[in-house]
């Protein structure tokens, strides 16, 4: 199933860094997010978009993860050539991830 089935997400920008939250609708699904959505896997999913480090912050009591992705916005929001310079639509790419092993 897709991450979109169990979680919601919002992307924000600062310079060339994108941060994307992933929040479980049901906090009981949080352990699955924590297990499946490793920083390594997220970085691999954003191949061709994110060229730097991906750091994950966990907020278990909110059922949320926050991914901070460096070199992700085409050199920075204010000078990027990208159509979506802010990377605001990257939340959609995140929610398209497959959460395997879950039903």
């Amino acid at each position: 199933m897709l991450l979109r089935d169990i979680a919601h997400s919002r992307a924000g920008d600062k310079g060339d860094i994108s941060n994307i939250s992933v929040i479980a609708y049901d906090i009981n699904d949080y352990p699955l997010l924590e297990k499946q959505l490793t920083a390594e896997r997220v970085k691999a999913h954003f191949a061709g978009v994110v060229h730097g480090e991906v750091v994950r912050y966990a907020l278990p009591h909110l059922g949320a993860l926050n991914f901070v992705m460096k070199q992700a916005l085409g050199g920075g929001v204010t000078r990027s050539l990208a159509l979506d310079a802010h990377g605001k639509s990257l939340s959609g790419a995140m929610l398209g991830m497959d959460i395997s092993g879950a039903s």
Partner: protein
Amino acid sequence: MKTIRIGAGAGYSGDRIEPAVELAEKGELDYLIFECLAERTIAIGQQARRADPQKGYDPLLADRMHAVLKLCADKGIKIITNMGAANPLAAAAKTREIARALDLPQLKIAAVSGDDVLTVLQDGDYRIEDNGLPVKSLGDKLISANAYLGAQPIVDALNAGADVVITGRVADPALVLGPLIHEFGWATDDWKLLGQGTLVGHLLECAGQITGGYFADPGVKDVKDLARLGFPIGEVAADGSVVITKVAGSGGQVTAATCKEQLLYEIHDPSSYFTPDVIADFSQVVITEIGPDRVAVTGGSGRARPDTLKTTLGYVDSYIGEGQISYAGPGAQARAQLALDIVQERLAIMGVQSEEMRYDLIGVNAIHGAQVSAAAAEPYEVRVRVTGRTANMREAVRIGNEVETLYTCGPAGGGGATKSAREIIAVLSALVPRTLIKPTIHFEES
């Protein structure tokens, strides 16, 4: 227990105006804030001010003030905004003029200055945080340098009796933290309270983004009545605890989920959110639905504020030229790809000088790139987009031209070509010692 009601009337410069009017009319507010200053807005305002010394503040300031000033004056609601941008003094003078034209009783309007540190940066020995180079290396391309001021000048203005406070660059949450410190008399080294107050500001500063705006996903996350989205109200107690709500009957929704999304919006390490007033800690925040469209948020904290202030440098970075054209029907994607190949070859033949190019197919791979989008089905229509960075306007113009000539020289059935070329003002940042920043307050009385 005393509670202060703060409404957020704008989350960015171009935001809707009627939700702020609704807040002023029905929100039973004590304060109405407007956050309208994006990163490069001040640099653009600085250019406007150089062309006309009476300009450089937010282009919608007059419209917003006309819409809410009388309501706020009648009800005793104080207005706090960063719409001063590159020229808070002119913004205050304009606001005074509007107050007089509306025949309002006497209003005290404060303009907060001192964020402009361009000469400090030009004369000193500072480094650009992003790349380690000296600030001086930007030379005459540097347009503006504005330090993020904290809540203190807003507190001082309110303590002096201001009804309207207009700033340039201040940390966005300071627009809320300022009135909280003023109302509750929080000590400026009570890091726990300042952290919680900063949390309230962070939640409110993007206005509709916490009341169901930027949240809907049909079938999964449905939100009612986004065309009449209500903007948020924070009911804040003396211990900083807040209930986020909105005007009854307005569109949108306030739920734990909308509050969580906004909590993490543009946050990196949730335990270390740097502001001029406090290093806030949002890692232990507790979010509880306590009623329909009522969510309590507590648990924000913090530690001692940094000794340096982040300063945004606006500079002329480059020029960007762009062209687009659409293809549709059977074979649309192949024709669009052929168009991209032709333009790439043409730019080489013509010797167009660029530093960086992008060749996108809108509808196929323009948003998330070729790798992320690889598995998607072929769309009915595709829009070609060619973009490039150049050192001057002349070269930038040539990029769009090579897309436009696809009309007569490219693949079959291209339509709707557009082209543009623009100067790019970008931003970098530097850190400046707090001791060098001297906020000043100027009062205008209507």
